Each structure stands twice: as structure tokens, then as C-alpha cells.
């Protein structure tokens, strides 16, 4: 576990970040910070650039311009696995479980992050009692203990989203990037998920989440960043966002999600 960062530097500092696909400016000069211990929501209409931004932060895309600092260290241009090992866990909007592995082995795969870069990975067996115990703990935490031995691709989609969180938690992350984890959940399931996320925050994990479900985001997040057409439209507390005229305009202009769901 990396040691504590300087209080003054934000945990995640995004400066003037851009990513263009040909002529399309998917992310266009975005700057914002995430501080330690926060739950920050990233919202915006379809095609606003939320997932692109996630992919930039986690290293799956290289920025066209701009910088990303994690705990004061530049991480733009680093490979995803290096960023993951620095303590940035993520989930995927379209779930990507290791389908043929058991649920527990999915979590164990995340626990190997520190050993993978070393040739020790070829010497040590992963099914050790300690590792299994820790994996079981994590599964207990996210409520998947009952499915530990099931093949991951046999789980229903809601549980697969939880599995993605569990797998990311196995990295002992400092920052957790959740990409629409509440999509397709029932009201009750979403409530449970929110409780889980708060619990994680209480245990010191900073959370940045992309959400389509506005009510979920508004209830859960302490701060919200609104993206529109690759740019930041607004930033503030849920209350500020809900009353921000630009945000209402953008959402009404698109689908009126704010009014219907918030």
C-alpha cells in the first residue's frame, strides 16, 4: 500500500486533457481534480466523453494533449497495467469478466498485481490459503460470497458488475473508477450498491464514477462534474448542479433526463 500523499496535492489532477478521434473531439481541454476521500460523479449525455475520459485516466487511451497526475505523479502515457498497479482500479461499462474463471479466481487475478511484473510470478502458486482467504473477504464485502465457485460468465449481469468491483478492489486501490455500475439494477439493488460504495469510501477509497442513472448519482456523490460534448459544462455539489441553468439546458436539449430522473 503506497504511503499517504501530501495533503495539498489532489489525488487525481487532470489538466487540459484532450483526446481527438480524427475530427471528433471526444474530450476537449478538460481539467478537474478529485481529492482524497471524495465520491465524485461524472455525468453527461450520451457521447459526452465520459467513458473516453475514463479510458484516458486508466491508460487505455493516450491523450492527444494534456496531463494527468495521480498523487502528484504524471500517469498520462503510462500503460493501463502500470496505472492499475499505482492504485487505480476500474470497472468496465460493458462488463469484462474473466468468463471461464471462477468468481474467486477473478478476484485472485486482481490480487496478483504486485507480483506480475516480477519473474516471481512464475514461481509462486496463487491458490494459497492466505490469498484465498483475502479473496473470500473481498467477495463477502461485495456480497458475492455465495457465488465464489461459480464460473464468472454464468452470473447475471448485475452480479457481474459487482464482480468487476470486487476484482478492482483486489488491487487495493486508492482510486476506484466505476463505469455505470448501477446500469440495469433495480431500485433496491441500486440502493445496496450505493451503500457498498459509501462503505468503500469510508474505508479510505476515493471514488470517481460515471453514471447515467441521475438519481443514483445525485444521492451518492458529494461532487459532480458534468461533461457535454467533450467539455466540462459545470462542476459542483449535486444541489448546485440540479439548479445550474446550463446543465438543465443541455439535458432538456437532449433528453430531459434531469427532470425525469432527478
Amino acid at each position, binding site marked *: 500500500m503506497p504511503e499517504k500523499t501530501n495533503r495539498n496535492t489532489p489525488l487525481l489532477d487532470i489538466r487540459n486533457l484532450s483526446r481527438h478521434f480524427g475530427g471528433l473531439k471526444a474530450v476537449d481541454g478538460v481539467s478537474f481534480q478529485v481529492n482524497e476521500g471524495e465520491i465524485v460523479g461524472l455525468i453527461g449525455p450520451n457521447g459526452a466523453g465520459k467513458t473516453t475520459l475514463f479510458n484516458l485516466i486508466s*491508460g487505455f487511451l493516450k491523450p492527444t494533449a494534456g496531463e494527468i497526475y495521480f498523487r502528484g505523479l504524471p500517469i498520462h502515457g503510462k*500503460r*493501463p497495467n502500470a496505472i*492499475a498497479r499505482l492504485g487505480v482500479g476500474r470497472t468496465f461499462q460493458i462488463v469484462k469478466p474473466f468468463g471461464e474463471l471462477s468468481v474467486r479466481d477473478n478476484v485472485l*487475478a486482481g490480487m496478483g498485481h504486485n507480483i*506480475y*511484473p516480477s519473474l*516471481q*510470478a512464475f*514461481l509462486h502458486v496463487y491458490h494459497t490459503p492466505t490469498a484465498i482467504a483475502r479473496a473470500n473477504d473481498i467477495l463477502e464485502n461485495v456480497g458475492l460470497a455465495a457465488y465464489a465457485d461459480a464460473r464468472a460468465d454464468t452470473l447475471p449481469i448485475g452480479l457481474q458488475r459487482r464482480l468487476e468491483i470486487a476484482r478492482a478492489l483486489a488491487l487495493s486501490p486508492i482510486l476506484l473508477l466505476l463505469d455505470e455500475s448501477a446500469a440495469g439494477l433495480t431500485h433496491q439493488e441500486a440502493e445496496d450498491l450505493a451503500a457498498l460504495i459509501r462503505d468503500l469510501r469510508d474505508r479510505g477509497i476515493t471514488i470517481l464514477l460515471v453514471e447515467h442513472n441521475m438519481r443514483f448519482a445525485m444521492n451518492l456523490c458529494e461532487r459532480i462534474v458534468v461533461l457535454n460534448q467533450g467539455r466540462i459544462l459545470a462542476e459542483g455539489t449535486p444541489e448546485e448542479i440540479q439548479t445550474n441553468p446550463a446543465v438543465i439546458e443541455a439535458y432538456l436539449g437532449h433528453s430531459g433526463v434531469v427532470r425525469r430522473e432527478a
Partner: protein
Amino acid sequence: MGYLISIATFACIWAVLALSLNILTGYAGQVSLGHAAFFGIGAYASAMLTVKAGWSFWPAFVAAILITGVVGGFLGLPSLRVRHDFLVLATMGINFVVIAIFKYVSFFGGALGIIGIKKPALFGWTLRGPWFLALAALYLVLTLWISAYLSRTWAGLALTALREDEDAAEAVGVSVPRFKIYAFAISAALAGGAGSLYAHFLGSVFPDHFAFVESIGIMSMVVFGGIGTLRGPVVGAFILKALPEYLRFVGDYRYAIYGGVLVLMMLFQPQGILGDNSWLWNKIRRRIND
């Protein structure tokens, strides 16, 4: 007896080839139709070190494994750029290019191959017949052990992870390029050892011994037996390597039957004869559990 020993020796060598390909394709999900290239590199390395440089078998055997491993890692580079069917064809291409180099570069003996490769000796005593079979079987056991152990290590888990989903593997800290190269290197190294044994068993190597059809044969063994398992490639190799021999009573229909068996197998048991959930494997397990 010599006949059976000879068949068994080849079967052991091909079982190693199948197991090594299984690490690449079964574990790491990188489908390669160029495995015979690694087989050939190992055979040539060992043949040249003994015949031209005058080494004895044992250091040459080890060197062949190492050389093939390094070259294999290098030849795995295309896998960093191309995936799926494109990778299949790129590896196929590697096979052709490697054979062409053996054939066209006189340093490697050209079309005349390398002749006069001696059988290994232990304390001045030449290993032949059953003793060579024992050596091949020992190497097969070693390969089995490595395969089995690898699948239980963190590295094995990383390979499985990248097979299942490259993005997700990266997201949990697995360097996908690095582990792909590892997979190619390990797989090639083991195949290189098989190549060395083959060269010394046969006494001569020619470029055409390692042609594309051999790659197809090795892949067929892996899939036929049950990809991703340990038992599958071994059993696949033993059956398919020996099949043409014990089909001799059907005369010239050996290969028609061989092809037909492959087709029927894929139609009715696509997971392989002893793959997980195959009819035979389920039966065997039930029998053993009772």
C-alpha cells in the same frame, strides 16, 4: 519392439509440441499455426551446435531450448499488434519464412539439410531404442510438470486473464504485451527441446520437416485432445501421431480417415476427446468418483 518404441518416441516428441502449443493457445489464447517453426529452430540449433560446432548433445539440448525461447519471444512480437484470425495468419507466415530461411541461407545447410547428427550419449554410452524413448518420455514428463505448475502460478493466472479479456487483464495490472511474449517464449522453448530430440533421434534435418503442415498437425492434436487441459494435448498427440501407423491396414485411406476423424470429432465433441465436459472425460470422471 523397435517399431513400437519408434512410434512411442515420436508420439512423446509430438506430445511435447502439443503441450507447448497448448501453453500459447490453450492458456494464453494466442492461436498459432506456426508452431513447427519453433520445432524447426530447436532442431536446427541443436543440429548445428553438435555437427558444426562439435558440442555434445546435452549442452546443445539446453542451448536449443534457450535459443528457441529467445527467438520465439522475438517472433511473438506480431501478437502485440494483431489478434485473432490475423494472428493465425501472421504465425502461419512466420512458419513459411523460417523454413525459407533454413532453405535459402547456406549457413543453415540450405536444401541439403544437416546430416550426421549423433544420438545423445551418457558416460560414453549411446542412448538408442528404449533409452532414447526414456529420454523423450522424461522430457515429456518435465513439460507436463511445467505446464501443470505454470497453470497454478500467478503467471499462469495472468495468461488466463489475458486470454479471457486483454483489457480486463491490463486493468488488474497484467502487462499484456509482456505476458504474450512470455507465452511465446515458454511455448517456443519447450518446442525447441522437442526439436532437439527429434534431430538427434532422426540423425538428419531438412527444412521441409518443419513445414506448415506440421503446424496444422500439432494444432489438430491440441484441439482433438482437448484444448487448455493437460491430458488433452498428450492424448491427442499419442492418438493422432500413432493413428496413421495403426491405420496401415486400411492402406492408402489412412489420411482420408485421419481427416474424417477430425471432422467428426469437431462436429460431435468440439471440446476435444478429453476436454472438460466431453462425453469420454465425463464418463471417466464418473467411473473414478464411484
